[in-house]
């Protein structure tokens, strides 16, 4: 910590110089006497120490893991072993955090052995790993004539997860897996959904006997049931590019949608996997359960646009990551043609594929100044998107256009209808 003179010294010297010059030129001693207190005040430099470093800092967060939009209370504790004249602390906030209440700068005076707590509240505006990290400290002398500065690294890791959007209905997978779940499978076996009726054979349970049919035909019949199975769902996230201004970019909308779909499908006991397509692939294998949800959310936290010339083929993704029976929900703004190529590849391989496309147009319009030229550009862009969507639909891919300002559930409802028709819009 190196002490330095502050600009206040220059101010004092300036006033003193003017006072002395005016005093001499006017021949009045009062002006010289008037600046004497300022001159005497300069004698305090170095006497009220800024060299004292007998103080420590500790930082605590009210919650280390939060969702977007949540508030976190940051508590900084300053403890002094020696008297501290005037300590100024400043904590610069990363762009993903916004000050909600209090101040991220504080001034403290401490006696020996005293400790002070300083609290302020921040709002987490965007997902990500946030490191509050460095805290800047400036130790002033009483007069403000001398200051010493230092930066102190304190642990302050905050994980801001994407807030899942509310979803009640999800696109149902066409193919099931072997494990128990919430979908009614076409295959017959143990379950509660009634299926076919057949003649009784030795070994059938009495409780499965269909008494109404048995009485009518004077022969025992049993009711068969459909099995309830789960499904594999793979979310494919396009991180090749994004449009719009943070925290409302297409990638933010995509990640929120992915978080909502993850939470929704995992609540239905499905296995959910994630493939992040950023040129090369990054993935999380399909799995289920609470721990897996944490794993997926952690992967979504890292999801970011990474420029790359690399374009990998879908064939490189292992079968255990992209099971052949899986429902693939691709979330993409359809800006980069490389992702479209991957989608066509997936469709050609016979995957049950749904494309959820958060539209970049309203997000970009919100970020730009309205003008006739911008309107024209957006209309052309909308036409181009429409052409791309039609091209995908002609290949039998269900396409869902989603304005991120609208509820996701309404858009996904359109997906179900489109998949039933075989042609999606």
């Amino acid at each position, binding site marked *: 910590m190196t002490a330095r003179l502050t600009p206040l*010294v220059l*101010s004092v010297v300036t006033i003193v110089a003017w006072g*002395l010059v005016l005093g*001499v030129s*006017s021949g009045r*001693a009062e002006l010289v*006497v008037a600046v*004497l207190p300022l001159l005497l005040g300069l004698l305090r430099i170095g006497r009220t120490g800024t060299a004292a470093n007998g103080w420590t800092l500790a930082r605590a967060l009210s919650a280390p893991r939060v969702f977007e939009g949540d508030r976190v209370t940051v508590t900084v504790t300053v403890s002094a072993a020696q008297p501290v004249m005037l300590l100024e602390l400043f904590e610069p906030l990363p762009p993903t955090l916004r000050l909600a209440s209090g101040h991220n700068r504080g001034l403290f005076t*401490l006696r020996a052995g005293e400790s002070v707590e300083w609290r302020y509240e921040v709002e987490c505006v965007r997902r990500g790993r946030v490191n509050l990290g460095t805290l800047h400290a400036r130790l002033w002398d009483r007069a*403000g004539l001398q200051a010493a500065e230092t930066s102190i690294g304190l642990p302050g890791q905050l994980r801001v997860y994407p807030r899942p959007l509310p979803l009640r209905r999800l696109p149902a997978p066409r193919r099931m897996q072997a494990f128990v779940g919430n979908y009614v499978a076409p295959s017959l076996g143990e379950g509660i959904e009634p299926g076919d009726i057949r003649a009784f054979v030795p070994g059938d349970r009495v409780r499965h006997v269909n008494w109404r049919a048995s009485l009518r035909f004077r022969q025992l019949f049993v009711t068969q049931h459909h099995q309830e199975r789960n499904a594999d769902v793979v979310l494919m996230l396009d991180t090749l590019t994004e449009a719009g201004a943070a925290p409302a970019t297409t990638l933010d909308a995509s990640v929120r949608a992915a978080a909502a779909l993850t939470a929704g499908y995992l609540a239905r006991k499905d296995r959910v996997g994630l493939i992040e397509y950023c040129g090369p692939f990054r993935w999380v294998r399909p799995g289920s359960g609470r721990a897996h949800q944490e794993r997926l959310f952690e992967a979504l936290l890292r999801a970011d646009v990474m420029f790359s010339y690399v374009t990998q083929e879908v064939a490189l993704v292992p079968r255990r990551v992209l099971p052949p029976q899986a429902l693939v929900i691709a979330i993409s703004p359809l800006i980069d043609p490389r992702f479209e190529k991957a989608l066509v590849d997936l469709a050609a391989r016979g995957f049950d594929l749904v494309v959820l496309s958060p539209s970049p147009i309203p997000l970009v319009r919100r970020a730009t100044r309205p003008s006739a030229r911008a309107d024209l550009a957006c209309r052309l862009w909308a036409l181009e998107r429409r052409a791309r969507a039609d091209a995908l639909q002609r290949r039998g891919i269900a396409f869902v256009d989603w304005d991120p300002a609208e509820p996701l559930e309404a858009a996904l409802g359109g997906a179900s209808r489109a998949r039933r028709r075989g042609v999606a819009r």
Partner: protein
Amino acid sequence: MRRAAAVLSVVLVSAPILIASSTAVVGLGALALLLCWLGILVATPVLVSGMVLALGEYALALWLSGGPPRLAGAALLGVVLLVLLETADLGRRAHGATLGPGVLAAQMRACIVVAALTGTGALAASAAAIVASTALRLPWAPVIAAAGVAVTLVAVAFALCARRPPRA
């Protein structure tokens, strides 16, 4: 903090008006007050220019009124200058910051002590100067005073440069 500085600046510019309430003094005082208030809100250099203007107003008032030297009043005005500068600076630092318990009380205590010490020091120095001037009649007094001012300023500049940390 800013309100206290604003009140002190009113005291600073009104003191010369009490000595000589001419139009020029009042006009200069109003301009100085405006600059001081602006400086308290915006930046210290503006405040300094307002204070320098107030000193000019004081010089003008003294020149217009004539009469014997008012050294006690001058020392008091000097204390106001010092406290105003430090209060405004602290106000600027404290603006938009959380103030810990006891910060204001400690600063106020320190300010009172400094004001008392520097005021007393200024009065003692002026008394010593009066005694010296009656005992010792120097020829070319204005030249010696000007030389003294120059020596003082150079000495202050050297002292401050010596305290500056070496450049890397």
